[in-house]
């Protein structure tokens, strides 16, 4: 019996080792696609990493940009149409899953590559301040792309500890991030394992991760001689959005951040809810066009007196 059990254990172990071999193989073409199809993993592509990797590459690019516009998907919607007609501004709105920590890293990369930069803008909706390292999009947007680029070391110790607690240190290495991006099967197994035992997440309008990295971002800009501006992205003028802003304002006041960022609340660009899509957060693309977005940016420029020289036309 003992010999049988030992042989059984050896067989199970060998099968697991071979399975790990399959996982390794699944990162290489053509096996990546074959295993993705056979295991129903095709939805776990590297699109998030490619998207954020693109932003990292953009902000790193040695160009003549002196100012950086970062933000969430509303910022991207409004400002991205003008990204190609601006050389002094690097426009890189992404999404809120990047978290404020991710925005901090993008700003850091930009400032490192552009020593003479004068301004950094962070233009986000209130939801960005409640985004943490969740088991859903967090790893794909806020951790893996930065891990793959070897940038996570730029975060403060507390944020790194939070990342480790949420995703596990071995999975925050560049090697694993690149492996998971190359193998949809590996990414599927890892992300679903995260769902099985999700880390404790902070909740509230202003999570500690966002507050801390907002302060880090301001300090970083000050250190590099650039001005930091926190602006509110356009919001639908509804009761729900007003109450969200009120809760965020209270949280900013509570943490002593309000005075530094009062413009975020006093110069909020409110718009008719009819201009927004079903989610009530993004503009409805069927009614919004380049001209409309230009007018929105102009509204922000007028209200804040910032974003000077931002080109809003390809003429």
């Amino acid at each position, binding site marked *: *019996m003992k010999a*049988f059990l030992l042989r*059984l254990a050896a*067989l*199970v172990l*060998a*099968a*697991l080792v*071979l*399975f790990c071999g*399959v996982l390794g193989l699944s990162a290489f073409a053509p096996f990546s*696609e*074959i*295993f993705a*199809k*056979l*295991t*129903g*993993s095709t939805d776990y592509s590297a699109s998030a990493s490619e998207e954020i990797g693109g932003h990292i590459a953009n902000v790193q690019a040695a160009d003549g940009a002196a100012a950086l516009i970062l933000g969430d998907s509303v910022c991207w919607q409004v400002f991205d149409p003008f990204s190609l007609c601006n050389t002094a501004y690097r426009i890189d709105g992404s999404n809120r899953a990047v978290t404020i920590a991710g925005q901090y890293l993008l700003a850091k990369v930009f400032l490192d590559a552009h020593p003479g930069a004068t301004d950094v803008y962070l233009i986000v909706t209130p939801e960005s301040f409640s985004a943490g390292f969740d088991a859903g999009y967090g790893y794909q947007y806020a951790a893996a792309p930065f891990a793959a680029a070897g940038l996570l070391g730029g975060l403060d110790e507390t944020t790194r500890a939070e990342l480790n607690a949420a995703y596990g240190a071995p999975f925050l290495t560049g090697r694993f991030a690149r492996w998971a991006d190359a193998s949809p*099967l590996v990414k*599927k*197994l890892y*992300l*679903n394992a995260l*769902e099985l035992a999700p880390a404790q997440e902070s909740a509230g309008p202003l999570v500690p991760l966002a507050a801390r990295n907002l302060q880090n971002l301001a300090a970083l800009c000050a250190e590099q001689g650039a001005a930091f501006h926190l602006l509110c992205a356009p919001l639908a003028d509804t009761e729900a959005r007003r109450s969200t802003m009120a809760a965020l304002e209270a949280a900013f006041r509570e943490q002593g951040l309000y005075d530094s960022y009062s413009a975020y609340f006093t110069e909020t660009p409110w718009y008719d809810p009819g201009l927004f899509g079903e989610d009530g957060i993004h503009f409805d693309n069927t009614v919004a066009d380049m001209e409309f977005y230009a007018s929105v940016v102009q509204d922000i420029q007028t209200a804040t007196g910032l974003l000077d020289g931002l080109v809003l036309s390809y003429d």
Partner: protein
Amino acid sequence: MTYYSLVFPLFFALAVLVFWLVPPKARGAVLLAAGVLYMASFGAVSLAVLAGVTLLTWAWGLGLAAANTTATRRVFLVLGLLSSAGYLFARKAVELAAPGVTLLTATGLAFYALQSASYLADVYTGKCQVQKSFLKYAVYTSFFPRVLSGPIGRAEEFFPQLEALCAGQRQCEVSELRRGLITMLGGWAEKLVLANLLTAWVNAVYAQWTECSAPVVLVGGLFFGFSLYFDFAGYSHLALGASRVLGFALAPNFRRPYFAQTLGEFWQRWHISLSSWLRDYIYIPLGGSRRGTPRRVFNLLVTFLVSGLWHGSGWQYLFWGLLHGLMQSIGALTKPLRRRFSVWGGTAGVWARRLIITLCANGAFLFFGAPSLAQGFGMVGRIASGAPGLGFLDLGVSGTELAFVVLAMVVAFSLDLVAEKAETAGSCLYDRFIALPGAVRVPALLVLAVTVLVFACRLVGADAAAFYYAQF
């Protein structure tokens, strides 16, 4: 907690370990505890119904054994049958007659209700002894390897083995453990590799049949039977393997049905535990083939209609049963004629007969797989119309997956062929496999295990496709 859930291997390993480590007298209690825990994972209602049916049928069994007169014995038998199979069939009939009305049901009821009914009938006819121990009877109904979807057990098969295990006459043997685990691995492969992949495509055909081309509907309809086979045979192998690891040798539930040369033989090979239950407790009590041809035809039709009703409260299941009843009747009526041709054609003739039976069985399964009888006829109409529409690769299942399904089916049916030949020679597939040199056996097991692990990944992050027969 099904066989492919993440928790099951841990639960099973723990149950096996405790079962073999405790003193033999306590083995029954361990099995009962495992059965209760297993059923509890499907909800309190399922557990309560199992407990209710078990308690009632055990009590009626005691009453039946103690009764002195035939009339009293009959009363206890009827009460027992009403508490088990009677309730089950009444529930299905009510739901069929009054759509929307749902009576109390529970996971596995269709299987353990028939088990309890057969126990009472066997006690009544003296085929088996009454089980005085409630614990042992409860183990019989709640035996976790098969409580979900069978095989439907028989008292005379189960109790002697349980007695032997509890008396310490049967010990844990390496050969049985090995055989049980390899059988389970084969079952997992059938379910996870073949059935789930094939079902994904077949389900897509059934869901979009109005847009599919006629050839796609034809192949999808005919392949539903194959997906059902690999699903249910996979489950059955898991149940048989798990039982064997626990020291129980249960009779097989499938014996390569697509190698049958007559429909009668098909039913001796497909879901054998249900077919034999229907034969022993419906067909034969009705008179079987002993009362002339018209009565035999009537008995066949009734038996297969009951089979259809057992499968579900839908007209498509009754129609499927009726089709089989009619085909069996035609088979019975033409038997003398067919006997003349049964030796014709040599090997080619054998394969031609197998093909015909496969087409008949899977043709009927087309209706079985449809959510309604109207859809079943609609699909047949679409096949006949030759309508154009979505192709084989337009249903969200990639060519890679379909190619793998075809490859896996070729391997599976090749193994069935080896098993068929082995059985003719008085052996079996397992014996043939175990006789292979270790240099072949071990790599084959490793490849199978890794393939199962890879395909188990399909279940991650999605609602796992349940075993088809668990719904009954």
